[in-house]
């Protein structure tokens, strides 16, 4: 029921008095209001902006958030108002919906934020009033197209295990994916150009031998041209067959426009091969050669503008059809008129109506060759009318086509721009993401540092520092920590006091691990997962990690494999930085410095030291140089491979 009429319900009920006297049966009992309360104002506080309305206004739409008891969840007892932490500007439209019964979509509002607000308040967008509905739908469609474009770009990302066929198809479709594809792209482009130029030059008269008239080059250098043609056709055939092989759906590929053009381009050659000797058919064969010019359409794979043009023409099919139809009508009318007008004059070129067609077309398109001109006065009058109307008829559908082309072209440009910006955008997003994961790893170290400090009883201020992480962060880190613990497999060697954990690592370390996983062959305990998530550790099954908290403990245990740990433990406890410049920890220090600018110099750095897993295996013999400095590897650089010191 519409909003306004809800207020008229008492009237409608009162109007039922007309039925009472004529009714044969007694009326049912009327519902009574349990707690008959007077209409009261309620205050809706939306992000600080207070809206007030009658309670009845909101009750008009009981299936929305504000109209139902759902709003009680947002009731604030102290201030006696309903508080919503949403956008107050959009809320205006929503509240107006309750008041007037019409939902309007403000043009300046972003479509997705508006949609979200509507979804939050439980209002379906279909009830947007007619005045705003079209705009809303247009914007929504645009947005959806844009999102789809983005998603399509994402699909280009290389999946690790694509079959050879799929790789080839991708290479064909998108030449920028690999060097081979680019080479192939340029080679085919070159050969198309060569083929087209050959066809053209073939017909140029090429100088004459004294006893013959001008001979076109094609006949003079038959062999050369034939070889060129053969070469081009071979390349095209190979290309076509490769595409056919690589296509995911061969049937669909064979039906597509480009493949038909390919076929049409190379077929004349083969047909020519087959029937060279038959004289009658060679006339037809010559005609077939015309189709060779279709090779030029193969360029549309190479040129985006051409594709856009083709797409525009396709999408403007109705306008083009209209143009054609109206032109045909006009041509017939004017040709008939001109024919009858010029019938009287002698030696008139307007011999028949079809003959007048030519005059009409030439005049309407304002070409005016002058090979046919009217001589009678009537003819001239009608001829001028013809040329004037021609301008109009052509000028009408053309802007539609032009605007279509412009829209599609700009859309394409936008897509290209977005693709170019995407790399930078993704890089920035990745940096911020690793920032969060680094924060986790960092806090983990700090957490462990805390434990370490507790055990060794160090100074107050270091402990102090670590309280600065917010409660939210610490809870989040605790959560990730729990996840690590959950996915740790149970203890394997009974002799080992502490389990080896399944831990988050950062990207850099993960990549290193992948590289080294190939080199090393010691058994490992648990695969480590990259913090960037999503990638299964197919290559990193070789590493296991040890928290530095273990180090103090393991420092107590004897044995050569733990000697390294001792050393690392020692590092941890050192508080002076400069002497460590040559050691590993200096590598750790550098990026850590960037993170803790306001700390005292006596800061202890933690190092997550990776140690080869089971006792008894030899520690890996390779160290590695300082990690490559990059913005995102603040934690990564602190993870070092321990070399035997």
């Amino acid at each position, binding site marked *: *029921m*519409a*909003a*306004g*009429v*809800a*207020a*008229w*319900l*008492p*009237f*409608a*009920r*009162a*109007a*039922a*008095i*007309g*039925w*009472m*006297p*004529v*009714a*044969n*049966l*007694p*009326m049912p009992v*009327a519902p*009574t*209001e349990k707690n008959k309360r*007077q*209409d009261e104002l309620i205050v809706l506080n939306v992000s600080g902006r207070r809206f007030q309305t*009658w309670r*009845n206004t909101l009750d008009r739409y009981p299936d929305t958030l504000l109209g139902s008891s759902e709003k009680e969840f947002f009731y604030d007892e102290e201030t006696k108002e309903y508080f919503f932490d949403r956008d107050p500007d959009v809320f205006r439209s929503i509240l107006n919906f309750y*008041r*007037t019964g019409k939902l309007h979509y403000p043009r300046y509002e972003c479509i997705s934020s508006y949609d979200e607000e509507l979804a939050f308040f439980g209002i379906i967008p279909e009830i947007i009033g007619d005045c705003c509905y079209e705009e809303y739908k247009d914007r929504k469609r645009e947005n959806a197209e844009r999102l789809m474009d983005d998603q399509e770009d994402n699909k280009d990302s290389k999946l690790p295990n694509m079959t050879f066929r799929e790789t080839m198809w991708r290479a064909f479709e998108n030449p920028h994916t690999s060097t081979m594809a680019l080479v192939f792209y340029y080679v085919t482009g070159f050969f198309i150009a060569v083929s087209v130029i050959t066809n053209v030059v073939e017909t140029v008269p090429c100088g004459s031998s004294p006893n013959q008239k001008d001979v076109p080059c094609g006949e003079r250098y038959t062999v050369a041209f034939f070889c060129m043609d053969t070469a081009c056709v071979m390349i095209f055939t190979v290309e076509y067959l490769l595409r056919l092989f690589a296509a995911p759906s061969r049937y669909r590929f064979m039906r597509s426009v480009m493949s038909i053009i390919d076929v049409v381009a190379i077929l004349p050659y083969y047909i020519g091969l087959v029937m060279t000797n038959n004289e009658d058919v060679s006339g037809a064969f010559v005609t077939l050669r015309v189709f060779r010019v279709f090779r030029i359409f193969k360029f549309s794979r190479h040129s985006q503008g051409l594709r856009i043009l083709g797409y525009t023409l396709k999408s403007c099919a*109705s*306008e083009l059809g*209209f143009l054609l139809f109206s032109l045909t009508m006009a041509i017939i009318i004017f040709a008939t008129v001109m024919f009858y007008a010029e019938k009287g004059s002698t030696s008139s070129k307007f011999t028949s109506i079809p003959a007048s067609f030519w005059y009409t077309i030439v005049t309407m398109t304002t070409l005016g060759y002058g090979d046919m001109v009217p001589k009678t006065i009537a003819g001239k009058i009608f001829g001028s009318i013809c040329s004037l109307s021609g301008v109009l008829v052509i000028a009408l*559908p053309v802007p*539609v086509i032009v605007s279509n082309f412009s829209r599609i072209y700009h859309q394409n440009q936008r897509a290209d721009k977005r693709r170019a910006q995407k790399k930078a955008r993704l890089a920035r997003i990745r940096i911020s993401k690793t920032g969060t994961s680094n924060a986790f790893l960092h806090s983990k170290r700090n957490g462990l540092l805390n434990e370490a400090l507790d055990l060794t009883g160090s100074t107050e201020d270091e402990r102090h520092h670590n309280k600065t992480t917010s409660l939210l962060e610490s809870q989040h880190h605790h959560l990730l920590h729990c996840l690590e613990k959950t996915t740790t497999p149970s203890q394997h060697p009974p002799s080992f006091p502490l389990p080896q954990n399944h831990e988050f690592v950062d990207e850099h370390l993960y990549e290193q691990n992948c590289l080294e996983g190939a080199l090393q062959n010691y058994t490992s305990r648990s695969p480590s997962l990259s913090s960037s998530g999503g990638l299964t550790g197919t290559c990193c099954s070789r590493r296991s990690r040890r928290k530095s908290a273990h180090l103090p403990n393991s420092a107590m245990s004897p044995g050569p494999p733990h000697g390294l740990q001792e050393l690392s433990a020692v590092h941890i406890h050192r508080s002076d930085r400069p002497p460590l410049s040559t050691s590993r920890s200096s590598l750790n220090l550098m990026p850590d410095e960037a993170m803790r600018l306001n700390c005292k110099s006596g800061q202890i750095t933690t190092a997550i030291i990776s140690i080869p897993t089971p006792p008894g295996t030899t520690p890996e013999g390779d160290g590695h140089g300082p990690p490559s400095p990059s913005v995102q590897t603040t934690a990564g650089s602190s993870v070092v491979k321990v070399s035997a010191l």
Partner: protein
Amino acid sequence: MKAKTREQSLSDSRELDGSYDQLTGNPPSSQSKKTIKQRFLKLLPCCQPSATPSVSQYSIEDDFELSTVCYRPEGLEKLLEQTKFTKKELQILYRGFKNECPSGVVNEETFKLIYSQFFPQGDSSTYAHFLFDAFDTQKNGSVSFEDFVAGLSIILRGSINDRLNWAFNLYDLNKDGCITKEEMTDIMKSIYDMMGKCTYPSMKETAPSEHVENFFQKMDRNKDGVVTIDEFIESCQKDENIMQSMQLFDNVI
């Protein structure tokens, strides 16, 4: 040119046939057609029609005038005296009224539209028409807030007798003091129309007239074919059901 359904493109030939006004999409309003003589006369500066010619009735401008006129009801106190509503009730009523009819008066079309919102299945326009006539006590084609509230006051706050009087007034279409069979049949048909076709069991064609017969049997004491106000009130007071149903209106607001 784009995306037009076939029906649309075919039907647009109406434009050329002159049966269809290009701008508004409506059949050309006969009211806005002027005679050729008038048009010609208008062109001549000396022959400006001073007196309003009889042919120009209801043109588009009049329509606009009606909607821009803002009718204000009399003061709240005056209405309090005239009706039996409390101040708050009047306020609520007025707010609802003004929301739907910002101009301050309801014309019959809006009235019908509003009423039809409550009866989506049937056709309530005839009954709404009768109601409109009943509310429009001043017979000026529009129901102002005072008329509206006055009617409601009688129905919702009046005594049983007042209510019966009002109902009688509703039935008496020509307001001559008695209800004839034809009037009653009209009313009955309009009530049955409101039900619509999709009912169970489906209504027979003769249902309204049978109902009218029933009614007259009950109400017409002296069997003279018409029901006067006294007969009506007397018969209603004797009928338990009617008395009980009249009580329904006590709690509507």
